[in-house]
């Protein structure tokens, strides 16, 4: 991978950030309502609102400037890495994100880990089994997993494992037990995506000639699958990193609200309802930056995992037809299949 490639990818990333920032800026601007009156109209009960004070506060947040000026000021501030303060709480945006982040990270990491295990187990079992009914059932699971509303799943889990059988707390982020149900809820759609992509790849790999060759030389089906087919089939699943991340972030908005968890999703939801423009912008930029980063890492590590791509980059002719890399060639065709 050349420096030029890296530079062009970084430039693409910056472009994505700029578009995300600009879109969210104008969307927020065109929403009806005024953040300052919202803030001062505490709780919605009719209050005496001093117009002079409203003007002062609007000036403080640059809301009295014409739209293009507001936009330029916002862009310059971000370029200087100044993300401003939340209109609702007065706390710096970076601080608000930093305090919400660990909770979401823990949730997402645990959910992704769970999803990977469940997804691999489902895909591998469905590929290996000789019983058609089991294969069909397992193959249908991902569709169901994606279709189930996260909100409903969360409430059901709470109903059963917290209210009826008091295994896990329903409120409070403090204890380790509190993360179990939210992580399971978030893992369900994630595992469905992984299982679906992986199952298709494995099925493709399973019909390749090398499978017959290896089976003939005495490999067991399980060993063959785990040692040869799975590493190849995981590659397309890996490229789903960005999609999985997006899904995890979107899911966290719902999960964090159902389970009363602190986190980025919750923060985003309250920021949008309160029209807290600086905070929403901060969260959008942060999420976009992570998304860009995840995709960049995926793209950069892909050649490391796929010898064929590595070889192609070096511009040397080298193909080893008898290795699974050849299978990757064909599996690539299935990459377009998304959950």
């Amino acid at each position, binding site marked *: 991978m050349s420096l030029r490639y890296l530079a062009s990818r970084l430039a693409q990333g910056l472009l994505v950030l700029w578009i995300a920032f600009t879109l969210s800026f104008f969307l927020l601007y065109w929403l009806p309502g005024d953040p300052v009156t919202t803030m001062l109209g505490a709780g*919605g009960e009719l209050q*005496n609102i001093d117009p002079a004070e409203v003007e002062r506060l609007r000036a403080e947040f640059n809301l009295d400037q014409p739209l293009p000026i507001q936009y330029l000021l916002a862009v310059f501030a971000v370029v200087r890495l100044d993300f401003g303060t939340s209109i609702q709480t*007065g706390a710096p945006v970076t601080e608000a994100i930093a305090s919400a982040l660990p909770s979401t990270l823990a949730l997402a990491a645990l959910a992704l880990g769970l999803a990977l295990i469940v997804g691999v187990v489902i895909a591998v079992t469905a590929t290996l089994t000789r019983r058609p009914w089991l294969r069909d059932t397992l193959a249908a699971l991902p569709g169901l997993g994606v279709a189930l509303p996260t909100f409903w799943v969360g409430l059901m889990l709470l109903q059963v494992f*917290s209210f009826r059988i008091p295994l896990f707390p329903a409120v409070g982020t403090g204890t380790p037990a509190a993360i179990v149900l939210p992580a399971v809820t978030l893992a369900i759609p994630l595992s469905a995506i992984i299982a679906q992509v992986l199952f298709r790849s494995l099925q493709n790999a399973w019909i390749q000639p090398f499978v017959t060759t290896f089976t003939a030389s005495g490999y067991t089906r399980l060993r063959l699958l785990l040692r040869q087919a799975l590493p190849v089939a995981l590659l397309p699943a890996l490229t789903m990193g960005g999609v999985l991340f997006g899904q995890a972030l979107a899911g966290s908005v719902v999960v964090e609200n159902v389970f009363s968890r602190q986190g980025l999703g919750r923060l985003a939801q309250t920021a949008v309802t309160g029209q807290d423009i600086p905070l929403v912008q901060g969260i959008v930029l942060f999420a976009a930056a992570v998304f860009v980063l995840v995709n960049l890492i995926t793209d950069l590590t892909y050649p490391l995992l796929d010898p064929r791509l590595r070889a192609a980059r070096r511009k040397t002719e080298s193909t080893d037809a008898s290795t699974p890399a050849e299978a990757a060639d064909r599996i690539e065709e299935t990459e377009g299949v998304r959950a």
Partner: protein
Amino acid sequence: MTSFASSAAAPTASPRRRARFGFAVLAAGSLLLAGCSGSAAAEDENAEPQDGGTLKIAYDVDPTCLDGQQQGTNVTLNVTRQITDSLTDQDPETQEIKPWLAESWDVSEDAKTFTFHLRDGVKFQDGTDFTSASVKENFEAIQDLGAKASLGQTYLDGLKSIKTPDKQTVTFTFDKSNAQFLQATSTMSLGFYSSDTLAKSAEERCTGDLVGTGPFQLKSFEHNKAIKLARFDDYDWPSSIAEHEGPAHLDGIEFSIVPEASVRNGSLLSGQVDVDFSVQSQDEKTLEAQGLGIASRPNPGVVYNLVPKVTGKITKDKAVRQALVKGIDRDQLKSVISAHQAPATSVLAKSTPEYEDLSDLLAYDPDGAKKLLEDDGWKVGDDGIRVKDGTPLSVTLTYWQDASFLELVQQQLREIGFDLKLEKKTTAEVTAQQAEGKEELTFGNLTRADGDVLRNYFGVSEQNGNERKKAEELDKILARTTSTLDEKERTADFTKAAKILIDEGYSVPIVELSGVIGTGENVHDFKYEASSRFQLYDTWLDGEQ
């Protein structure tokens, strides 16, 4: 809760008490042991308060700011009330103003000068003394907050000077009569913080850098997660209407933010929280069937009402406004509101000190309403909606409140040929639209345990929800209320004002707002103060802590 464990834990307690409370006795300490009651029945009704335990309260929304001098929302003020005290207290039953941090006070006859004599020995939670200087610097800080002090600034309107002749005396002078000020001193919006707290920025105070004189100290505030309070052990200056002396019974209070109503309900039923701050009306029956308590107290002040604007194309017609008052069947609304809420019987809620029943003026009279409209030239059109000079009798109402009863009001008004279009929007959108001032009708309420709320809401030089152009008889009466301290005179004047508001159709009262709170069986003496916010100083928990 085995008797074996508990007898080992508390050898001096009576057998019945031991069996009941188990290990809790250890934590409870000597206070509990001093007063053991004998019978199980008495335990439920008149049990001796038990010390210890953390009261877990589930909130529906995050209080974006914890400073009660700045914020006017219930979620904020319920926390503020526990961490800071007031000069006076208002008895929620009798509505009388009683001593708290001020032992006594003198008010000049013209209600322009108020002198408070402060209690000795009061301290802030950081150990500094509470003196007349503290009062002065707090009230000045509220004035400095300006519009950010959403309630406090209206209470201090016209404040000219604050003098502190000695450490225990403070005198306020207003440039005009301000009779409502005495009641205002009982609210947490005029509560006190230490000098260190006042030196901090408004934003820092929001995030919970608050040191008060109250029975509980603020330990932590994490947005969207929890607010933790701990007992202030040196507390020894409860209000004169409190039921005990010394520190609070509870070890602490934890407010968790639980946005999902079904999760709050399930958590309360399964005992994971002790209080659900916002019970949905469909869950009330389940809670009561399980033997859990429901607490509610109507918010004093202006009830949920429609406020027509005299500048409106349709609502400028007095007949239309009056027809709105007559066209609503308030009794029928009972079928759609909580059993703990009530239809309005005046512009003021029953829990307001100066309330008087005006339900006669609010009787359902559809024929009267139709006649008013008919005589005014509003003729019934083909679709049943009345029309005058080509204008249909149709008004759009935008609102954000959880007020599903408005849909029934809509049906009722349809009967008299009035088309009320309902648009539920976000608070932000509604606030913005109201600021633009294009609506003919607004919907809302305003909480305060003093009739002065009428002047604030309707007064021509105040918020003036009706957008009236010049002072009327109504304003003369409301102005008079600020110059007398005589509660009888004030009540008579506020009643006169409420009558005018209804007669002129300036206010169309609908329903009294009251928050419905679910409490666990273990929660005792859960109390409201006069403006229907929590007072948890006397609250205690039974059972093992």
